[in-house]
């Protein structure tokens, strides 16, 4: 019995020491963090939301969401806050998005052109640029060149598919003098099913090689389950649970992070600003 108790105490002590070490590690890392100064934050907020302030000849959807991520990989649990503005001027669209968290910030710019609209399907071209700064260690620039489609299936089921050629440029500060950037050519895809169950509620499921502000190399899959709830003609609330895995092609997959977010979208019809 005493041996058992000693074992339990010893285990607790070891785990406490490990937890303290982990905390110290992140505190040290935090000292080298890129502090997101208020000017940068305001600049990008303005960049995203300025169109919404004016009466412009296109539809807009402004979204804000709050999320929490828990990770098994380098990621420590943290909260993040994101803002986005989706501008649509048919057949063109432009997505602007930013996300802030403790260690990093992201910027997304995503223009699209729907060149073919049919009764059951739309097809378009898309570009995507994503920037993130991670601690003081590295900056990433992701560029996607690809196609997207929206297929309307019977029984109110929608299928969204995009497939892109992906280029990732990683600038690592400590080797920048010898290697200005590391380039990875790869691919990216996302497959989304959405079904309108009731007038206001539509759940969706996504399997993708990337997430809105998460761009691993091919193929670390993300599985996302979400719900859209349309409160009225302007307001839509949503919640989303995403699970990110490692390398599922070579079958040693393990969960790297779990992400939960809640958000709110406000739609602004064309020729109207925020009222």
């Amino acid at each position, binding site marked *: 019995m005493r041996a058992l108790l000693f074992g339990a105490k010893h285990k607790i002590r070891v785990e406490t020491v490990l937890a303290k070490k982990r905390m110290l590690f992140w505190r040290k890392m935090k000292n080298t963090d890129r502090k997101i100064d208020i000017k940068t934050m305001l600049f990008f907020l303005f960049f995203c939301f300025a169109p919404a302030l004016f009466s412009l000849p296109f539809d807009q959807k402004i979204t804000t969401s709050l999320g929490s991520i828990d990770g*098994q990989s380098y990621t420590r649990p943290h909260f993040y806050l994101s803002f986005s503005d989706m501008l649509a001027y048919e057949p063109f669209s432009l997505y602007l998005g930013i996300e802030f968290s403790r260690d990093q910030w992201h910027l997304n710019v995503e223009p699209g052109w729907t060149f073919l609209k049919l009764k059951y399907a739309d097809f378009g071209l898309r570009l995507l640029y994503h920037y993130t700064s991670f601690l003081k260690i590295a900056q990433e620039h992701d560029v996607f060149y690809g196609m997207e489609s929206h297929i309307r299936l019977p029984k109110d089921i929608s299928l969204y598919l995009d497939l892109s050629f992906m280029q990732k440029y990683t600038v690592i500060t*400590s080797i920048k003098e010898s290697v200005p950037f590391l380039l990875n050519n790869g691919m990216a895809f996302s497959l989304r099913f959405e079904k309108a169950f009731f007038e206001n509620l539509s759940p969706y499921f996504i399997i993708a090689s990337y997430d809105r502000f998460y761009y691993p190399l091919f193929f670390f899959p993300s599985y996302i389950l979400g719900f859209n709830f349309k409160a009225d003609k302007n307001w839509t609330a949503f919640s989303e649970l995403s699970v990110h895995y490692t390398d599922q092609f070579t079958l040693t997959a393990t969960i790297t992070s779990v992400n939960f977010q809640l958000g709110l979208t406000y739609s602004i019809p064309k020729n109207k600003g925020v009222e």
Partner: protein
Amino acid sequence: MKTKYVFFYALLAICFFPSCRYGLHEFFDRSLSVNERSKTITEIPSPFEDTVPNKYSVLMLSDLHFGPGKTQAKKKLFDYLESLKETDSMPSFALVLGDIADTGCKEDYAEYASFVTKLQSEFGIEKVYGITGNHDLYNKGWNEFTKKVYPYVSYYRFETETFSWYFLDSGNGTLGQSQLQNFISKLKKDSKKKFVFIHYPLYRDNIFYFSLCDPRERAMLIDACAKNNVGAVFSGHDHYGSSFDYGPFVEYGVYSYVNNRNWQDGSFGILSVDEENARFNYTQY
């Protein structure tokens, strides 16, 4: 309608059959992930019991894929070792950078054990160190790994006179939070020149798919290696041994022992170490 179903199931079987022996049922959840296996580093004794020689060589192997109907590769390596028998150039010890077993089963590890016995008894290479690769973990292969592959862990280090040798567990395609943090902390405290051994390549000049896929984890690793006197990183996994110079250090790919084309090649590398001048040289055979 019936034909449709038969066709569908046949297609499913064709897709999944080749993967069955790799434990497809663990597709979404492999037990004992890296965060449970490899939290803190294990210090192990140096391969040299008494004095460390000024110059010596190390046999480097990767991606052996032992298993029924797989690795037939023996001749090239054993002929080479045979030619060294009466010389001083016999490797002092051997390192295996993962994918030791093809399916993670007992039989695969038994083949590896007899391979190690041959290295020990016929060529005097007493210590053969291993780390996990993705294949080693299939079918709960970690249990066998901890019984058959010295030093029975996958995250460890030892020291020689001038160098520190770090072995990482990347079998799940990631180092995991605990190992990554612990590794970076250890590097910072260690002033010696270092070698790092890992199954998954860090980058190695734009390998498509077969490298560490999380770019932030990769950036943290490269940054830590660049800042903390790492001389070289050795990796396997993609079977084609390309190398890449990051400036402060070089990453060498250790060519697969089996060679994708015929499973009979028997490729290996020799790492020559000069302890006196803190130099090294890597040659692929």
